[in-house]
């Protein structure tokens, strides 16, 4: 069974560009895109529209934006990493913010990786590609 890639991103343009880039990896994994923190948690904890999922069905990677409406990325991260059932899921924060407080807070909460979205599209594309390849093909997740 191939696990999903969970993309948590509120900006449709950024989301689209990310998915296009990930598709270039030619991986078999399905890319699930949710637009806010609430939906992300519903997916991970198998609630709401995702109640048919199994909670042990961990995504291979969660690409998590920080600045989102309703629940922001930091809260989502906290919920993921504080729950026994989900805390081993690899999470990469993928955000425009280079602010030190954000970085510190994420690592305090146990994030697996923190990547700043490049300004220029070419770099952006390249970075997403590398992230995809790394987490899907290289990284060994806990089963």
């Amino acid at each position, binding site marked *: 069974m191939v696990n999903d890639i969970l993309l948590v991103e509120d*900006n449709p*343009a*950024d989301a*689209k*560009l990310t998915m*296009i880039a990930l598709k270039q990896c030619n991986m078999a994994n399905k890319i699930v895109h949710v637009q806010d923190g609430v939906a992300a948690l519903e997916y991970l904890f198998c609630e709401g529209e995702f109640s048919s999922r199994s909670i042990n069905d961990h995504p291979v990677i969660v690409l998590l934006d920080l*600045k989102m409406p309703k629940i922001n990325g930091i809260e989502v991260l906290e919920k993921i990493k504080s729950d026994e059932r989900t805390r081993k899921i690899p999470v990469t924060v993928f955000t*425009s*913010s280079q*602010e030190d407080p954000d970085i510190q807070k994420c690592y305090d909460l146990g994030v697996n990786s923190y990547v700043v*979205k*490049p*300004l*220029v*599209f*070419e770099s*952006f*594309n390249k970075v997403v590609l590398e992230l995809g390849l790394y987490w899907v093909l290289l990284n060994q997740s806990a089963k």
Partner: protein
Amino acid sequence: MQVLVSMIVLGLCIAAFVYTDIKGFKERKIYSVNAIAHVISTNSVAAIQFLDNDAAKKNLSQLIVEDDIVNASILDKKGNTFASYTKQQADSFRFAPSLNGDRKVELLGNYLYIYSPIEKDQERLGTVCLRVQLSSLDKIVSEELGIGSFLLIIGVGLSFLISFFVQSYITRPLLRLIKIMQTIKGSGDYKSRAMVEGHDEINTLSMEFNDMLSQIEKRDNEMESRVKERTAELETANNELESFSYSVSHDMRAPLRAVSGFSNILTQGYSNVLDEEGKESLRFIRNESVRMGQLIDDLLAFSRLGKKDIQKSMVDMKALADEALQEVLNTGPEKYSAEIKIDALPAAYCDGNLVRQVFINLISNALKYSSHKAHPMVHVGFTPSSDNRKNNYPLTHPVSKPAVYFVKDNGVGFDMKYYHKLFGVFQRLHSQEEFKGTGIGLAIVQRVITRHGGNVWAESAIKEGSTFYFSLPSAK
């Protein structure tokens, strides 16, 4: 002091009084004794003419009424004693008058001698001599001196009393008030208050003084709270500016990236359905979004300069310029083939990081704008004179012999007509085709130097090159 003066005055008065009294006493004595002598001499005319000693003696014995007359004698015209009188219990006395004397008065020792001639029809018959004691005078004088001393003592006492009164009711409260004023002046603590004491005017003075202190204290507190308010306002404004900068950074970038990304997708994937016009449109979209990104970065860097605290120290300017050059060459978009010379530079008191950026911007400009020349040359140096501006553009800070550094190139130069635009934000004097750039470099240079309290200016001639000068004030 005043006590002494009044004592002296009182003493003088008493002395004058006693002196006058003595004089008066003597005069009266002389007058009255003279009168008596005259009476005696008149009464003794007959006695002496008829050589009647007993009668004369009887005359003299009447002198007993005048207590002060101790001895008296009637002398004949030859000077021999004709009759004499001696007061009871006194010693006898022999008079020795001159024969040709008028009524005479003599004061010898403590005795008064009166000589009154006895005459009849212009003929001198004899002399009445009287010896008067002045002992009662002594008694009077000592009495008066006694009263005088007593008065002096009273005077001293009264003086002290009055002085004490003045002191405690006037002088001491005033001195205490003065002391409080001095204490407050020294400590600047306007909370203390004077003791309200004394009467009338002193009282009023103390109360008015305290009122004034209260006013000062109140004003102090008002000032302080106003300063606190203002500081809070400034802090708020600063924080707002910071979050504004952050917003610029974060929120403006995402759409930009999207524009870039999707136009790239179009270019990559849909060129076959685009004609030349379409492809060129896409190119413009791409380029402009790149530029926008640069502008955002530059603006952010520029605004951050205003907030950062400057940390000054003595900096090796030559080393700094070398570092800046390295960074320009390493990160620059092009290879530069210029001949670059950096002279030995004197150390300056400044923030190394910020001034490094100044060198980076100036050197980068110099290289960029001379890159089209056949033999591009860039020279970084120092001029010892304090003010060698050829133009008279106003300085932001008064010049007081600061160090003047320069970066000179032989590049394309700029038209001095547009000098006033040179340091403007995003102001450029050349097109993007000629030379790339956002026009923020010099704005940053000016901001950094101005924040150091220095001056920056430039000179140029078209096609010949430009020289950019900046000065940094010396350490105070």
